């Protein structure tokens, strides 16, 4: 590659998901000149919830009340797990900085320090998680206190049934009730789409009429809190909720919806805005299609192969995700890493990738495949040497973890992003 670089920077973060965004934030905060490239389409599949560590060991299905106790047990049982490579203090620091940054940019988070919390899901299950958007937080408290609570569904909204959630959760939350509302200005049979509705609530008059409709359906029902599908506004959700709560005179909270969801969209927009403010250069909706290790860094090509942007960086942080993020690719025989062709830890042959039962409590071995690193999170070649002193990796592409079953997705991404950036800092002699 002899292309003259269009951009020169300290760190190129490849990947625009949670790990990439956290890494860009941490690097920028340390004063690194940071560029982030990648497609964000996946972030809208995020729920907005931030898991740290919920289940360990996966096969036992044991749900932990304290994520830190779970992490300690994990470090003991699975020393190769990426989260076992980050100290508890660093994990907390990383999470605090990341959620603090989101809160500062308008997307507030709450947690019970050191304790997992639970919130209701549209499948009628309870999800164990750690940090929760403020808009969902009253639900955590209502469940803890077993308060009588009314879930309000919406006629014409797909994939969310208030009755389903309330009936399924009766054994653990007998105080749940359900009702359905017809949104103002909508025909009886019309389909409701979450995003236009969320945007419409930015207008005061729309908000007022919605609040009145909500108050009417609550009526004299003896409930202490009200739940609604997560579509109560986009950027200004907490102001909107506060405003509506004044009319209904009860705490109002959101229940996550089926992705792609509004909380995912909020997260995507908040990250973009916040990272720009921090001085990160965002090459969004552009894929890095080649990255060449060089003596003192990397030359990477971003965008379309016909007219690429060339980025020269001292370091690269690989946060390209798994199959959905296209950091890994599988053909019928083998799983490969897509950018550097790094060796991928994987089961020997395809029959071993997945179990015969989708819900097998042990999880599917393919989900523990991924790239292997040293303690500084530098990807290793087949001879177990770092491919490059300044190539780092973070997030779900890392091997020896099953974030879906362990309920540790956000924690994994944020903690390993922190660790990778710290390693770069140390290597760069900062």
């Amino acid at each position, binding site marked *: 590659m002899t292309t003259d670089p269009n951009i020169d920077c300290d760190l190129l973060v490849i990947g625009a998901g949670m790990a990439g965004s956290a890494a860009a934030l941490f690097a920028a905060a340390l004063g690194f000149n940071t560029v982030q490239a990648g497609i964000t389409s996946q972030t809208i599949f995020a729920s907005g919830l931030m898991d740290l560590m919920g289940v360990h060991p996966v096969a036992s*299905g044991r749900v932990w009340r304290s994520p830190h106790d779970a992490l300690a047990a994990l470090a003991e049982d699975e020393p190769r797990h990426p989260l076992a490579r980050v100290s508890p203090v660093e994990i907390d620091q990383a999470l605090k900085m990341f959620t603090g940054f989101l809160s500062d940019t308008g997307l507030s988070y709450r947690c019970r320090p050191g304790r997992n919390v639970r919130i209701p899901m549209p499948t009628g*299950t309870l999800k164990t998680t750690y940090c929760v958007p403020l808009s969902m937080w009253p639900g955590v408290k209502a469940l803890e206190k077993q308060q009588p609570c009314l879930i309000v569904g919406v006629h014409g909204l797909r994939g969310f049934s208030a009755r389903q959630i309330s009936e399924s959760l009766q054994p653990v939350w007998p105080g749940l009730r359900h009702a359905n509302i017809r949104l103002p200005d909508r*025909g009886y049979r*019309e389909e409701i789409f979450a995003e236009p509705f969320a945007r419409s609530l930015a207008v005061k008059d729309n908000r007022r009429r919605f609040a009145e409709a909500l108050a009417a359906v609550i009526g004299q029902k003896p409930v202490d809190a009200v739940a609604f599908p997560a579509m109560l506004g986009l950027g200004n959700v907490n102001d909107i909720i506060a405003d509506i709560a004044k009319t209904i005179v009860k705490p109002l909270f959101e229940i996550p919806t089926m992705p792609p969801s509004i909380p995912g969209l909020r997260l995507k927009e908040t990250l973009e805005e916040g990272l720009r403010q921090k001085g990160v250069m965002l090459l969004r909706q552009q894929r890095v299609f080649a990255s060449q290790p060089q003596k003192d860094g990397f030359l990477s090509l971003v965008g379309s192969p016909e007219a690429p942007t060339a980025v020269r960086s001292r370091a690269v942080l690989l946060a390209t995700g798994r199959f959905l993020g296209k950091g890994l*690719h599988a053909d019928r025989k083998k799983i490969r890493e897509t950018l550097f062709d790094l060796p991928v830890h994987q089961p020997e042959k395809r029959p071993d990738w997945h179990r015969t039962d*989708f819900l097998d409590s042990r999880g599917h071995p*393919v989900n523990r495949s991924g790239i292997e690193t040293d303690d500084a999170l530098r990807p290793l070649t087949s001879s177990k040497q770092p491919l490059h002193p300044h190539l780092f990796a973070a997030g779900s592409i890392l091997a020896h973890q099953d974030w879906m079953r362990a309920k540790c997705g956000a924690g994994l991404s944020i903690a390993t992003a922190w660790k990778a950036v710290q390693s770069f800092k140390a290597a760069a002699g900062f």
Partner: protein
Amino acid sequence: MKSIETQVLIIGGGITGAGIARDLALRGVRCVLIEKHDINAGASGANHGLLHSGARYVTSDPGSAAECRVEGSLLKKMAPDCVEETGGLFVAVEGDDEGYVAEFPALCRACGIAVEPVDVPTALEIEPALSRRLIAAFQVPDAAVDPFKLTMQNLHQAVALGCRLFRHSKLVDFTITQGRIASAIVSNELTGERFAVNAGYVINASGAWARVVARLAGCTIDLICSKGSLLVTHERINHRVINRLRPSSNADILVPGGTVSILGTTSVRVEDPDHIFPTVKEIDFIVSEGAAMIPRLEQTRFIRAYAGVRPLVGSSKKSDDRSVSRSFALIDHADDGVVNFATITGGKLTTYRLMAEKTADLICGHLGVSAVCRTRHEPLPAADATRWTEAGYAPRQWAKKRDAGDIMLCECEMVPKSVVDELIDSIHEHNGRPDLTSLGIRSRIGKGACQGTFCGLRTAAYLYDINELKGREGLHSIQAFMRERWRGVRPLLWDTSLIQAELQEALYCGLFGVELNDD
């Protein structure tokens, strides 16, 4: 225990049982049909959907070939609604046995099958997906048939004429007195309740389970189970049925149907017809073999794999299951000392009508009923609730209707709310229970690219809102539906399908935690 009196008890709700029910109903015979799962749960629901011209069997089994020819062309006239007259091609590629290619047309003609040679350039023009290594092609009157629609239409007419249908009703025992089955003890698999059916005659139409059912009456059948696995493509690849021109072997038929194509099959002997699923090894083999004929199959996206069990009769001593006749066996168990009991098994989807006719003739002989078979001349009536299994039908109807309020529950295959409403009514009419699995059988829900990831939750939510699901049933239904869909995707998880599976697990396990609520 409650008991039901009837003239005939039919055991098995596949195409054979459904065909017999209709045939008998048209002759004015009262019958009850019991099925332990739901319609087409066995081989009737897990095959190519191929209406054979007979050409496939001209070498190995000329008798079956002629049977297929007659019945295939009859079905095209009597059930046009279930058949897509695609036509078929037999093709050979470099390396295939040229001697076999040369004999083929004469063998077809000997069985009365219309066969026309097609020159290679023309064949490549009409079927562009064919390999450039093509050396010969022949046109035959193969067609595609929708097995679900066919079974449902047979049952619909039977029920309209008075046949009583019990799904999720499993035969647990027979009471036999003086060489006669006095009653059959049946368990409702949903409620655990038992009831007795007292029938003048009992017919065992349970396909691969025929041996198990016969054994309950103390009868033995020489039957082996041969598993065949098949693959469904994401999009339709061929216009006509494409057969490899060689002695019957693995992975040599690609059948188009609506918006997809189906590739198969394998032949693996199994002991137990329950709990079968396609394996990674079989799928890889099918893809590689199929690609010799249609190279695109190496790159194409597959949506689903499934396996069915062929019941092959009188064959346990043969070493190659493919050489066993695909003709059917009608066994009168009077010879085993049970005078009012017979088994019908083996055979093909294409010849189901003939099987039903012969069986009904035998039964009527025993019962002293003189009415003759009418299915040879009376068309199968189309029924509203049976239309939704056809790939591509639901979107066409939705586009015609243009009802903005008819919310789409399944986006991949475009199944709206109104279709689900119609199916629910029909399931209730036939003593069934509407849930994701039963709706999935009767429509394209869960059969598109997302394999139930999105439509599963949407449909469950809808079922709660209209009071069809209650309590924690939805969670159980989602778990069962996801598990059932998984069996069909697990062997083909690479490339795009693996991405889809990861998304599905991220939602259902990562986010919703349904695996932790497995109670």
